[in-house]
């Protein structure tokens, strides 16, 4: 997020476009971009050279297109290149610690990946390295895909978590401010009352003040115990965030395609609590998650297909049982209607593109 907001003027002041020799003095709006061959060029030059489609790079003669140019993130072009290579590598080499039996094997794997990357970056045995990479990718195709899904899920989860934390912080802050305000108000009210009392009552000022003091002392001690109580209770009970968080962990894996479908339905505010999940991993917590879903999906629970690994056979009463069915009937529907709808829903899934 931050890197996209970077500003090039201050630190890349002395930049000169290697093609047209324009510098920032002549063209303050000059923007340098980098092509796939890692040669810099200003935007004007790119416009000029690649206006009629692909053309060779003026420096290295490699054929380039306009669309392949992008803004420079790093000052050091070698790092820029390395990062691009790493991006490609990471899409293939995404095994995790869990995929290995021992830590040592995992570390060996990490080192191998690093070796391959290093070779690509420094252009040593590029051909054999590429072959090796392709071989690896072909061998582990399934695992790569699953891990990619997992990664995606995790990153969404992290975003969500961050958002929740932010919200929680804000709530804390607001609560605190409110508390302060209330206190201030009570204080001024107290003062007003005191003056009122002093003005109107015929008791001596001393006794009134003494009585006030006793009351205010009591109040402060009460507030203190209150604070203690709230600390204790907040330590004991789980706040809203951690509750949903536990549930999310159970649903940690979700199929990417499922999400894409949802995106089609213009579901742009992602919220894992509301959306439905498909299981990638046949881990624990499936039944649990379904039960949880029930609360959100209004009683209609769909037996979910799992990904290519296998099918989880689970039948759930479409209208739920007990009071739920009563709830469904309350709208004036017959029981049969619920079943009909469930069947209909099941059939709609058939017209979706195959998994």
């Amino acid at each position: 997020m931050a890197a996209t907001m970077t500003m090039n003027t201050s630190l890349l002041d002395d930049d000169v476009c290697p093609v047209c020799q324009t510098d920032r003095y002549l063209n303050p709006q000059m923007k340098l971009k980098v092509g796939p061959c890692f040669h810099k060029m200003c935007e004007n030059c790119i416009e000029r050279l690649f206006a009629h489609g692909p053309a060779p790079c003026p420096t290295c003669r490699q054929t380039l297109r306009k669309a392949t140019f992008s803004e420079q993130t790093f000052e050091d072009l070698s790092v820029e290149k390395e990062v691009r290579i790493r991006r490609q590598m990471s899409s293939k080499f995404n095994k995790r610690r869990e995929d290995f039996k021992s830590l040592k094997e995992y570390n060996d794997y990490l080192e191998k990946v690093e070796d391959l990357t290093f070779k690509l970056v420094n252009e040593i045995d590029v051909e054999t390295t590429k072959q090796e990479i392709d071989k690896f990718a072909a061998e582990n195709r399934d695992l790569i895909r699953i891990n990619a899904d997992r990664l995606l899920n995790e990153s969404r989860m992290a975003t969500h978590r961050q958002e929740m934390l932010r919200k929680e912080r804000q709530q804390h802050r607001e609560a605190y401010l409110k508390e302060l305000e209330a206190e201030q108000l009570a204080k001024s009210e107290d003062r007003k009352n005191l003056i009122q009392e002093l003005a109107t009552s015929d008791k001596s000022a001393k006794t009134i003040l003494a009585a006030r003091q006793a009351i205010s002392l009591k109040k402060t001690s009460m507030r203190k115990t209150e604070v203690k109580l709230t600390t204790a209770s907040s330590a004991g009970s789980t706040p809203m965030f951690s509750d949903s968080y536990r549930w999310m962990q159970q649903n940690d894996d979700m199929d990417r395609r499922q999400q894409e479908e949802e995106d089609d339905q213009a579901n742009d505010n992602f919220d894992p609590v509301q959306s439905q999940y498909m299981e990638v991993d046949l881990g624990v917590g499936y039944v649990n998650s379904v039960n949880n879903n029930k609360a959100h999906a209004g009683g209609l629970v769909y037996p979910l297909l799992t990904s290519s690994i296998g099918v989880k056979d689970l039948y759930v009463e479409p209208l739920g049982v007990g009071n739920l069915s009563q709830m469904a009937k309350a709208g004036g529907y017959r029981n049969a209607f619920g079943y009909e709808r469930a069947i209909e829903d099941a059939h709609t899934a058939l017209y979706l593109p195959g998994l």
Partner: protein
Amino acid sequence: MLFHIDDLPVYFPYDRIYPEQYAYMCSLKQTLDAQGHGVLEMPSGTGKTVSLLSLIISYQQHYPEKRKLIYCSRTVPEIEKALAELKRLVEYRKSCGLNETILGLGLTSRRNLCLHPSVSKEKKGKVVDARCHNLTAPWVREAAQAGQDIETCSFYEELERGDVREIVPDAIYTLDDIKELGKAKKTCPYYMARRLLSHANVIIYSYHYMLDPKIADLISKELSKESIVVFDEAHNIDNVCIDSLSLDIMRPTLEASSKSIAQLSERIEHMKQQGSEKLKNEYEKLVQGLQDTLAARDEESIMANPALPDDLLHEAVPGNIRKAEHFVAFLKRFNEYLKTRLRVLNVTAETPSSFLRHLKEITFIERKPLQFCAERLSLLTRTLELNNLDDLASLQKVAALATLVATYDKGFMLVLEPYESENATVPNPILRFACLDAAIAIKPIFERFSSVIITSGTLSPLDMYPKILDFKATVQESYPMTLTRNCFLPMVITRGSDQVAISSKFEVRNDPAVVRNFGNILIEFGKVVPDGIVAFFPSYLYMESIIAMWHEMGILTEAWKTKLIFVETPDSAETSIALDNYRRACENGRGAILLAVARGKVSEGIDFDHHYGRAVVMFGIPYQYTESRILKARLEFLRDEHRVRENDFLTFDALRHAAQCLGRVLRGKTDYGLMVFADRRYARQDKRSKLPKWINQYITDTSVNLSTDMGIAIAKKFLRSMAQPLETQAQLGVSLWTLDDVLARQKAQKEKLERVGGVHQQLQQQYGSTEAQRLMQDRASGKVYMDVD
């Protein structure tokens, strides 16, 4: 004198003792007996250090465990003072006929201890460290032994030849003593002291050797769990903790570390071409695991690392930074990433976890290898046999940031500030990695050592420290001051002679009326107070603007008529010259005014005893700059985690600094001085209640709401009475006890205890046990006044 507390014989090196010293020792013993932590506040200038040392040494020598004493203080002069005190104490114990061997010593930096003819000439501590390393690194010495022509340090070589314990007999060594000993034996005093640490009974050194995880790991690792740790002058301990884990990264830092990275990779290439086995060996070791390599770590590794959690040490270094060239590329990527961050021109604040996520998105750096960064770097530098480590300082900083940001999730914050000040237009970006939680750095100490004592002259309100440092104190005590004559007079001036309220509140602080009234206080007190006056301001900025205004108003010319004026500046050399001249002016009777800043150098650790300070004026309340983003983040953290309210913390912080400034005036009971609080807000109960008990006890109702002229009248009266000769005899029994007084006191206490016990028994006979208990409670809480007998 020798007296007993319970069954413990305490040797006290003076004939007389202050009552608060005795009470202090009693609480201290309680804390040690309970093996718990303590927070003790004792007025400044009442012999805190000597009471601490004499009780703990007596305790140590009396009981068979011989618990080691680790005494941490703030500055080198304070360490030397404590060492001198310790020496006197041990001599006194010897003269009492005790036959014991006590080894006590102080440790300070190489810069202060080095004997090497050319290295010791260096002025900067870092340079001395690096040059020392160049002469004493294992590979340098190996090469020299193999006959190559390489310079080594003869003092260190001498130390290596013999056993330290044989060179150094048991005694107390001040910093000078150990240097002398080193000279006599031609041995390196610094390493001598460091190797003796594990044998010594008493260690006196700076906070940082204990608190800074980077150094503590090196120096204080082997100290036993039973040790008694004392932090003296600990009122600022939370800031020390926070500073030790915070880092600032700026553009030049990154440039320098880029250079260092290039050097590293060059060096690796060079080594590879030579076909050296060393890189390969290192790699082999890393494949086996980090722990074995750590075992090889010894005192020579002066590359400091921030704390790695223990469970990580048992793990292997991640595979992708095992090879040297991979690691260097890794560092380069991280460094470049930081550079891109510094190019951002808006203020950002983020948590470590969001920083890590973004880092991963951009550069594909995972958390795990990042965590090992600092450790791996120090290994690499050793393998590469690099000299001139001070060149690597920036890179070390970057690596430390990497490790910290990946290790700690909570209690930290990254703040990027593109401009130095609010209205600057030239960007000078700075990335601050700020620790918000003081408890993180000090936690290992509370967990590891059974007794940790935190003590100072100003620790009020006492319950704040356990809260912000997150520990449980078994003993929490603040001692009042017993005085035969009221030798200091605190007063709160709330308005000037013209009845305009004075305050350093932001809205009115530059109001000419307020500034003039502040000035009038200075002029008037300059007329009535003899010798030195010290005046403190909340900040440099405010002081500058006020002095400028005073100059225009002619207040300075007026004040010059009675006293010379000196001003503290942020530059420490300038300030020490000003201080010297201030002292000269006070000594020759001319008298002087020193204008200083709370939280500045003058307010910490410089005493204005006797004629150096007869009055201290605190203009305004020294609140922190509340717009600072890091402070805001810290306040929020304290509120959420420790339930400390923002205002409570700010007031607490301001008043501890105010008390610290005003406490400078009084260094002992024969001293006297005025303490002037010049701000309307000090009159409020919530402010005053946060002052230390010993100051608060002398603030009377008549002196809390004064105008300048009233204050002057009271001050005149006070100074006249103080100018009368003081006889020691008058103090005896009240504020100064002889041995007889101590014994009488103990006897009285015992009797009282017995009487209470007796009453309890009597009640038990009458009413049965539960009822008796209730009655006793009533009596204790003062509900029942009648006496049974």
